[in-house]
Every structure is written in structure tokens, then in C-alpha cells.
């Protein structure tokens, strides 16, 4: 009983820290909107959040780009330019272009992916 009475203070301290650590660079990404754009662009045909399919798992992508300052810009370019992507078997082919021209929506999707650690 004693320890519970002491916990609220520790919890109040931890909460903002956890929020700061798990938040995306700007505001937290809108997951529903990100998933909606991913569905519309058929991303899930080749990508999964935690399993490797034709493309890398998004958790793996988030870990690979973790802490890098240009991560967001690089990924936005990756999914909007049609640049070549390298596949496990060594061949390269043009990456599918995301089906929205709205920069805000694209950035939100990238931010959500980068937050999937």
C-alpha cells in the first residue's frame, strides 16, 4: 500500500518523458490517416509493420533511420520519386509512388513509419 501511494509521483515524472521519446519529430503522426494512405497506395502488398515481405518491415526501416536527421526527407523522396529500390535477390526496380500528392499526408505516413520502433 505504501509503494502505491509513492508511485503517482514517479508516474507523473515518467509520462512526459515517455511521450517525448515516442513522439515523431513534430507532432505525433496520425496513425489512422497514415494507414489509410498506405492502404490506398497498396503498401501492405509488399510491406508489413514487423515482417519482412518483398520489402523490409517498417520497424526495421524505423530502426535503420533512427536518429538520422535527414530520415524524413529521404523516405519522402523514396516513396514519391519512383527511384529504384534494391531487392533481396539483388535486382532493382522502381519503387511504387504513393497515391497522394498532398505533402502533408505523405509526411504523416513517413513520420508514422519512422515512429514504428
Amino acid at each position, binding site marked *: 500500500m505504501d509503494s502505491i501511494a509513492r508511485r503517482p509521483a514517479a508516474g507523473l515524472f515518467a509520462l512526459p518523458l515517455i511521450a517525448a521519446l515516442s513522439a515523431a519529430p513534430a507532432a505525433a503522426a496520425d496513425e489512422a490517416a497514415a494507414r*489509410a494512405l498506405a*492502404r*490506398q497506395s*497498396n503498401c501492405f502488398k509488399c510491406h508489413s509493420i514487423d515482417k519482412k515481405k518483398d520489402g523490409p518491415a517498417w520497424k526495421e526501416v524505423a530502426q535503420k533511420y533512427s536518429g538520422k536527421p535527414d530520415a524524413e526527407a529521404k523516405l519522402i523522396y523514396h516513396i514519391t520519386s519512383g527511384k529504384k529500390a534494391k531487392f533481396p535477390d539483388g535486382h532493382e526496380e522502381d519503387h511504387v509512388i504513393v497515391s497522394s500528392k498532398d505533402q502533408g499526408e505523405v509526411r504523416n505516413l513517413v513520420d508514422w513509419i519512422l515512429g514504428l520502433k
Partner: protein
Amino acid sequence: MNDAPNPMSGPAAPGAGGDPDGHRPAAGKTSAWGRLRQVLLRPSARYSLLGLLTVGFFAGIIFWGGFNTGMEATNTLEFCTACHEMRDNVYQEYKQTVHYSNRTGVRAICSDCHVPRDWVHKLVRKSRASLELWGKLTGSIDTREKFEARRMALATNEWARMKASGSRECRNCHSFDAMNPEVQKQTPYKKHMHGKADGMTCIDCHKGIAHHLPKEYRDPDED
């Protein structure tokens, strides 16, 4: 029996009594319908059978052409988008997609995907479209909010129709066998060939190709 009324025996003599069935008119009284029947059922006294058949044949062609022209008019983009429910919602979404505008200028309009090309299936679809007229009259999706509320139900109906027909309308233009691995990207080509081997058709994977996916929709590959 000999005295049973025979509707095919020709016009009744004037002054003859009428029978209860109305096969012969009462004395002095011939209804307009009765007269019409008499004229239509009477053998031609003036024209030959060949003449009648020839005129009928060409009249049939003109009627058939007119009927089809009228029906095809309901397949045009202009007809479909005459309703604001379509024009303000799904038409605007479709205009952002590759089926509207692309490198080669090949455009698929509403009827290319939503109306079968062959006669029997087309007629069935057009008959069902009377329900859409009812929906228009009752305003079932006449506001943006009502449309969004019903989007999942409408999309699901259409996906089910396409699935049941084996994506027949897609296959009017697209064919697994016509896919060239030298120009189609390796990853989608592999998926297409696996899909073909598994008996899948276009709509199994390609939902949301011309209109926005409903917000309730979940990709089966999504985790």
C-alpha cells in the same frame, strides 16, 4: 363443343349477341380494344407474307438499333455524372487516378468497369439499376455525409459483384496472358502469375483503384 366461342373465327357479324368473355362484341357496340384486336388478328388482305416479313425485318433492325442506342446513352460518362451524387464524390476521386489519365491516353469510363459489355449481363445490370433510380428519388446518398456513411456498403456490393464475375469488366482490357515480363516490373509480374495460378482475379488485390477506399476497409495483408 360446336357452339363454344372461337376467338379466331374473325369479326362478329353486326347485330350478333356478345358473349360474356367479350370475344364477340355486344350488338352494335365494338370497343376500341375490340376493334384493335380485330385488325391485328385479321389476316392481311392486301400485303403478301414476304412483304410483311421484309418490312417487319427492317423495322426490327431500326427498333433494335434505337433500343441499343438508348441503352448505350446510359453508359456514357456524361449520363453517369449527371447525378451530383456521382459527380461530386466518386467522379472527383476517379479523375486523380491512372484510369482517367495516363501516359498512353487510354481512359476507362464508369461503364467500362461497372457495366458488363455482353448483352445478357448488361441487361441484368441495367435492370438492377432501377434500384439506383429509386435511391436517387429517395435521396439515399444525396449529401456528402450520407454518401460517406454508405460508402463501405456500396463498395462492398460492387466488390462482391466483380468477384462473382471473376473481374469480368477488368478483363475486358486487362489479361494475365498479355502481361509482358519485359515491361512489367518483376515484383508485380511475379504476384500476377501467382495470382493467376491460384485462380485469383483482379479485384482480389486491386481495390480502391479508381475511388477512395472506405475508411472502414482493412487490407487483408495489413497487420
